[in-house]
C-alpha cells in the first residue's frame, strides 16, 4: 500500500497557461476553481436570500417580488446553498486542497478524473442558472422539490424549471461521484510513509467520511431526479397518483408522493452531515492550532465522526413526521435521531476541553471557530426539539425549522469556512490578509447572523408558518411579528453588506498583502511543512515527507517549541518523542 504514495513516475508539469489554470489536473488549482465557482454561485444565493427578506420585512413594498418570484427565490437559494455552495466548497474546494497536502501525497490519485469532476460541476451550475432564463423561470417548489407540486400547475417553473433543476442535480451528482471516489481513494491509497489513518488531521477525517457518505447518499437523489423527469415528460407515475390539477384530471395514476420524500431525505439527511462533518473536522484543527493544544480525545473525535456518519443513514424520516407516512415510524426515527445527539455532544465537549488549559491565541480563525461553537451549540440543541417526534408536530413547517437549520447547517459551517479561509489563505496565496478588515467582517457576520436566526425560533414557537409569501391577516399573529420581521431584514442587509469586506480583503490582499510566513500559526500538520509557499505542482519537491507522529503535537512537555511538525523525526533538534 505504501508504494503508491512514493510514486516514482515523473510528474508532467503543464507548460501553457491554459494547462496550468484552465484544464489543470493539479488538485490545488482544481480546488480553487471549485471554490471560486461555489463562492460565485453562493453570492447569487446571498442576493436571493436578501430579496426574500425584503418581501418578508416589507410585504407589498417591492412590486417586482410576486408570490411566484418569492417561491423561486426560496427554492434557488436553498438548493444553491446546500448543494452548489456548501457541498462543492467543503468537498470540492477544501477536500481537493487539503487531502493531498495533509496526507503527504503529490496529488489526487486520479488527476484527470478530478479535473473532469470540476468541469461537470461547472456544467451543473450553468444548467441550474440557465433555468432562470427559460419560459416560466426556475422551479418554485421549495428546495425539497416535492411532487406532485413541482410538476403540476400552480407552481412556477413546473414545465422547464423543474426539468433543468433535476438535470442539473444529476450532473452535479456525476461530478460529485468523480470527486468523491478520488478523495476516498487518495486517503486510502496515497498517504505518505508513516501517515497511518489514526495520525491524520481531523479535517481529513471529516472530509473522508463525508465523501463516503456522499457516494452512498447522492444516488438516492439521482434516482429521484430521473424518476421526476420521467413523470414530467414520459407519462410515468412514480410519484404522482390520480389527481385533478387546476380543474383537469391528469393521466397519472397510482404513484406515491411519499416515495419521493423517502428518496429525497435518504439523501437529504446524510447531506446535512456531508456538510457538517468536513466543518467539524476543519474546526477541530483550527481550535487545536490556535489554542496550541492537541485536539482533546482525538480517537473519540474520529470515532464520533464515523458513528455520526453511519447513524445519519438511519434518521432520514425525522423530516417526515407529519408527512402522512406510517405514524409508527415516528418511534424509531425519534429514537435514532436523539441517539445521534450523543456523539455530536461529545464533539462539542472535546472542542471545549481542547480550549481548557490551552494557550488561546484569539486570532481571526480562532474567533470564527469560537463563533461556530456558539451557533452550533444553539442549532444543535434546537434540533432536539424537531427530532423529538411529538415536539416536532407543532413546530414543523414553522419559522422554528428555518431558524434551526440555518443556525446548524447554514451559519455554523459558513463560520467554519470563513475561519478556514483566513487560516489557510497565507499558505494558498503566500500573502497575509488585512487584520482590521477581517475582524470587522467577523464581528458583523457573527452577531448579525445570530440576530437574524435567533428570533426566528420564537416566532416559530408562536406558530408562524414558513414559505409564506405574506402572513396576511391572521388572528394569532400579533403586529410585533411584523416588526421583528423588519428587524431581521435590516440585520440581514447589514450582514449582506459586511461580506464585501471579506471579498475586498481577499482580493486586495492577493495582490497587495504582505508576504506571509510559510507557517504563520505554527501548525504541526503536513500542509504547513511544504518546501514552497504556495505549494508548487507536486507539492513536496524531490522527496515525499515521512511522518513520525500525529498531527497534534502542540505544547509537548520538554520540547523546544510549542509544536512539533508531523515530519520531524523523533529525537531531532530539541524535541522529545511522544508515541
Amino acid at each position, binding site marked *: 500500500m505504501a508504494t503508491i504514495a512514493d510514486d516514482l513516475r515523473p510528474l508532467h508539469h503543464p507548460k501553457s497557461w491554459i494547462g496550468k489554470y484552465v484544464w489543470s489536473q493539479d488538485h490545488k488549482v482544481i480546488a480553487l476553481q471549485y471554490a471560486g465557482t461555489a463562492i460565485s454561485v453562493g453570492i447569487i444565493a446571498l442576493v436571493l436570500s436578501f430579496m426574500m427578506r425584503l418581501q418578508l420585512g416589507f410585504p407589498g413594498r417591492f412590486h417586482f417580488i410576486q408570490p411566484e418570484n418569492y417561491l423561486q427565490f426560496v427554492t434557488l437559494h436553498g438548493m444553491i446553498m446546500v448543494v452548489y455552495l456548501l457541498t462543492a466548497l467543503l468537498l470540492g474546494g477544501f477536500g481537493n486542497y487539503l487531502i493531498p497536502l495533509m496526507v503527504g501525497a503529490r496529488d489526487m490519485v486520479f488527476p484527470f478524473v478530478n479535473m473532469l469532476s470540476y468541469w461537470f460541476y461547472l456544467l451543473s451550475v450553468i444548467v441550474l442558472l440557465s433555468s432562470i432564463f427559460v419560459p416560466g423561470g426556475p422551479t418554485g417548489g421549495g428546495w425539497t422539490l416535492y411532487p406532485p407540486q413541482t410538476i403540476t400547475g*400552480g407552481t412556477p417553473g413546473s414545465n422547464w424549471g423543474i426539468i433543468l433543476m433535476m438535470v442539473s442535480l444529476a450532473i452535479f451528482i456525476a461530478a460529485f461521484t468523480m470527486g468523491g471516489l478520488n478523495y476516498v481513494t487518495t486517503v486510502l491509497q496515497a498517504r505518505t510513509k508513516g501517515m497511518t489513518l489514526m495520525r491524520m488531521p481531523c479535517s481529513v477525517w471529516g472530509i473522508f467520511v463525508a465523501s463516503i457518505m456522499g457516494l452512498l447518499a447522492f444516488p438516492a437523489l439521482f434516482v429521484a431526479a430521473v424518476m421526476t423527469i420521467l413523470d414530467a415528460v414520459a407519462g410515468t407515475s412514480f410519484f404522482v397518483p390520480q389527481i385533478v390539477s387546476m380543474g383537469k384530471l391528469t393521466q397519472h395514476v397510482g404513484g406515491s408522493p411519499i416515495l419521493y420524500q423517502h428518496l429525497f431525505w435518504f439523501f437529504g439527511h446524510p447531506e446535512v452531515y456531508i456538510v457538517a462533518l468536513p466543518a467539524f473536522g476543519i474546526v477541530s484543527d483550527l481550535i487545536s492550532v490556535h489554542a496550541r493544544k492537541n485536539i482533546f480525545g482525538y480517537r473519540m473525535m474520529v470515532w464520533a465522526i464515523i458513528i455520526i456518519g453511519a447513524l445519519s443513514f438511519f434518521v432520514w424520516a425525522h423530516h417526515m413526521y407529519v408527512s*402522512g407516512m406510517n405514524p409508527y415510524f415516528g418511534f424509531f426515527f425519534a429514537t435514532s435521531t436523539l441517539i445521534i445527539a*450523543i456523539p455530536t455532544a461529545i464533539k462539542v465537549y472535546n472542542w471545549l476541553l481542547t480550549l481548557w488549559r490551552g494557550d488561546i491565541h484569539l486570532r481571526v480563525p480562532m474567533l470564527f471557530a469560537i463563533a461556530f461553537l456558539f451557533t452550533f451549540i444553539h442549532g444543535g440543541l434546537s434540533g432536539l426539539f424537531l427530532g423529538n417526534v*411529538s415536539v416536532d408536530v407543532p413546530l414543523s*413547517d414553522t419559522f422554528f425549522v428555518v431558524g434551526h437549520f440555518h443556525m446548524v447547517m447554514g451559519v455554523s459551517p459558513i463560520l467554519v469556512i470563513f475561519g478556514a479561509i483566513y487560516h489557510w489563505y497565507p499558505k494558498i496565496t503566500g500573502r497575509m490578509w488585512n487584520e482590521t478588515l477581517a475582524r470587522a467582517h467577523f464581528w458583523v457576520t457573527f452577531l448579525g447572523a445570530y440576530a437574524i436566526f435567533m428570533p426566528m425560533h420564537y416566532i416559530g414557537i408562536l406558530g408562524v408558518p414558513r414559505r409564506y409569501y405574506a402572513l396576511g391577516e391572521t388572528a394569532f399573529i400579533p403586529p410585533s411579528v411584523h416588526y421583528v420581521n423588519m428587524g431581521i431584514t435590516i440585520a440581514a442587509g447589514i450582514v449582506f453588506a459586511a461580506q464585501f469586506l471579506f471579498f475586498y480583503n481577499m482580493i486586495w490582499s492577493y495582490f497587495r498583502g504582505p508576504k506571509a510566513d510559510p507557517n504563520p500559526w505554527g501548525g504541526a500538520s503536513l500542509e504547513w511543512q511544504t518546501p514552497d509557499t504556495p505549494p508548487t505542482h507536486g507539492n513536496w519537491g524531490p522527496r515525499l515527507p515521512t511522518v513520525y507522529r500525529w498531527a497534534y503535537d502542540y505544547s509537548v512537555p520538554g520540547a523546544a517549541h*510549542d509544536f512539533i511538525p508531523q515530519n520531524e523525526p523523533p529525537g531531532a533538534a530539541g524535541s522529545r518523542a511522544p508515541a
Partner: protein
Amino acid sequence: MIVAIVIAALVLGSLLFHWLSPWWMTPLASNWGSIDTALIITMWICAVAFVALNLFMALTIWRYRHRPGSRAHYEPENSRLEKRLTLWTALGIAGMLAPGLLAWNQYVTVPADAAVVEANGEQWRWSFRLPGRDGVLGTAEPARITADNAFGLNPDDPYGRDDLIVDTAELHLPVNRPVKMVLRSKDVLHDFYVPEFRAKMDLVPGIVTYFWLTPTQKGSFDILCAELCGTGHSQMRGTVVVEDEASYRKWLGDQMTFGQMMAQAGEGRTRLARADANPSKRVAR
C-alpha cells in the same frame, strides 16, 4: 478577550429574550397538553446545556487567553471524563425522549369513539365532509370529480349518499368531543394546521392520512396550510369554529347531504335511481 465577554453577554441576552419577548406558544385549544409538556421539558434541558456549555466556553477563553510566556497543558485524552460526559448526555437525551415518545403514543392512538371529519385540500382552498347518519364516509376518487360532484364521491356507494358536504372553508366542531381528522388532497401536498390545536398532518394525494384531537376551547380559529402547495400557499385559509353541542347540531342541520346535492343535479337523479333499483351494484366498504 472581548469574545469571551460577548459569548457570556449573548447567553444572558438569549435568556432575557426568552423571558421578555412576546412570542410564545398560542393558548392551547385542544387536548394536546402532552405535546406542550414535552416541548417545555425539552426547552429546559436544552437551556441548561446551552447556558452551561457557553458559559464554560466564555470562562475558558477568558482564563486561558494567550499571555506572553503562557503555554498550553499537554493532555491527549481523559477517557474517564469522556465516559462520564457521555453518560450525562445520554441521561439528558432520555429525559427528553421519554415524554416525547409518550405523547407520540397518544398521537398515534385514535380513540374508538372519535367522530370522523374529512378535510379536503386543493389549490388553494379547504372544504370538508362529514359521514352523515351512518357514520361512514363514502368512497371517492379524483377521476369522479365534476362540477356537480366536487369531492369525487362515488354515486353508486350508499355510504356516500348521506355524507354531509361542506363546500366552504368553515368547519364546525363540537367542544370536548374527540375528532379523527381524515385528510385527502385532490392535487398536491397540503397540511391541515391550526396552531392552537398543536396537531397537524399532511394531506397527500392518492392516500388518506389522519390525526386526532379533542377541541377543548370554544372559539374560532384559523386553519392554515403548512405544506408548500404553490403560489397561493399563503392564502389557503379556512376557519374552524368550536362550539357547544346545541350550536353544532344546528350547524349540522344546515348542511346538505351528497344525495340531496345529486338529486338537485339533473343527471344525478337518474343514476341514483338506477343504483337503488340494482343493489348488486352497491360498493361494499
